[in-house]
C-alpha cells in the first residue's frame, strides 16, 4: 500500500497519509472549487486500500493525525469531518489528533473543538505563533 500524497495548491490542502509511518497530515488552505472531487481523492484511496488499512490499524498502537489548516470553507468542513469518521471506523480509539491553530484564531480552535465533540475523540490543541 503506497502512501497517499496530495500536494497543496493555493486553494487546496496537502494531504499526506502514510499508514506505514502511522501518520496523516492535512495542511494549508481548503477552498476547492470542486470540493467533492478534491476530497474524493482521499475517500477513493481509502476505499481501495481498506483491507490493508484495517490490517495496519490492528497492528499499530495509534495513528497520528495532524491538522495544520489555515482556513477551510463550510463544504470542506463537512469533508474533513467525514475523513475523521472514516478513520475512526478503522482505527477506533487509536486516533491521536493534533489540531494546530494560529495564536488569536479562536474560530479555528473552536472548529477543532466541535469536531472533537462530534466524534467523541479527544484532540490535542497546539497553538502556533
Amino acid at each position, binding site marked *: 500500500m503506497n502512501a497517499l500524497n496530495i500536494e497543496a495548491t493555493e486553494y487546496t490542502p496537502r494531504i499526506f497519509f502514510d499508514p506505514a509511518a502511522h501518520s496523516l497530515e492535512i495542511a494549508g488552505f481548503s477552498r476547492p472549487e470542486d470540493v467533492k472531487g478534491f476530497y474524493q481523492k482521499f475517500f477513493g484511496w481509502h476505499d481501495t486500500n481498506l483491507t490493508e488499512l484495517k490490517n495496519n490499524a490492528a497492528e499499530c498502537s495509534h495513528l497520528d493525525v495532524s491538522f495544520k489548516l489555515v482556513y477551510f*470553507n463550510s463544504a470542506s468542513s463537512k469533508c474533513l469531518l467525514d475523513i475523521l469518521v472514516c478513520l475512526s471506523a478503522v482505527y477506533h480509539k487509536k486516533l491521536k489528533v493534533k489540531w494546530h491553530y*494560529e495564536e488569536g484564531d479562536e474560530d479555528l480552535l473552536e472548529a477543532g473543538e466541535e469536531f472533537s465533540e462530534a466524534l467523541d475523540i479527544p484532540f490535542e490543541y497546539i497553538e502556533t505563533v
Partner: protein
Amino acid sequence: MTKELLVQFRSNQIDYQTVNDLLSQLWIHLNNKIPIGITKKVYSVATECLENIFKYADNDGTESLSFNVWSDDQYIYIDAENILKHVKIAKLEYNIDLVNSLDKIELKKLFKHKIQTRKISELGGAGLGLIIIARKIEGKISYKIKDVNAHYALFSFSAKISILSTEENF
C-alpha cells in the same frame, strides 16, 4: 468616521476565478493589518457569501450582481446583490429567517446537527454557509428581496463584523 472600500465588484455573472481574485484582494487588504481572528471571520463570511452567489445566482443579463467589502472604524461590512429566480426565494428566506431566529448557542447546535447529517450537494454545498455567516457576524443577516419581473427577483444581503481593536489602521 473613516470609511474605506476594500473590495468592489459588479457584473452580470461570476466565475470561480473571480471568486478567488476577490478573496485574494480581501486577504491582502486585511492580513497583518487587523487581528488574525477578525481577518479570518471576515474572510470566512466573504467566502461563504461569494460561494453562495457562485452556486445559486441567476443571470438575467443585467449587471445586477455586486459584491462590496468596506470598513469604518468599528466594523467591516459585506454587501452583496444578485438575481434569483422566483422559485429559489422561499427557501432562501426560510433559511435566513431560521438562522436569524437563533442565538449563538442554538446556531452551534444547528451546525453540529447539519454537519453530521447533511451530504455535499451536486452544486458542492453542504448547507452550512448561512449558519457559518450567522455565527461570525455582529447581529443578524440583513436582506431584502425585490421583484424585478415575472421571473426574477433581486436579492440583497448585508452583514457586518466587529473590529475588536480600534487601534489598527487600514
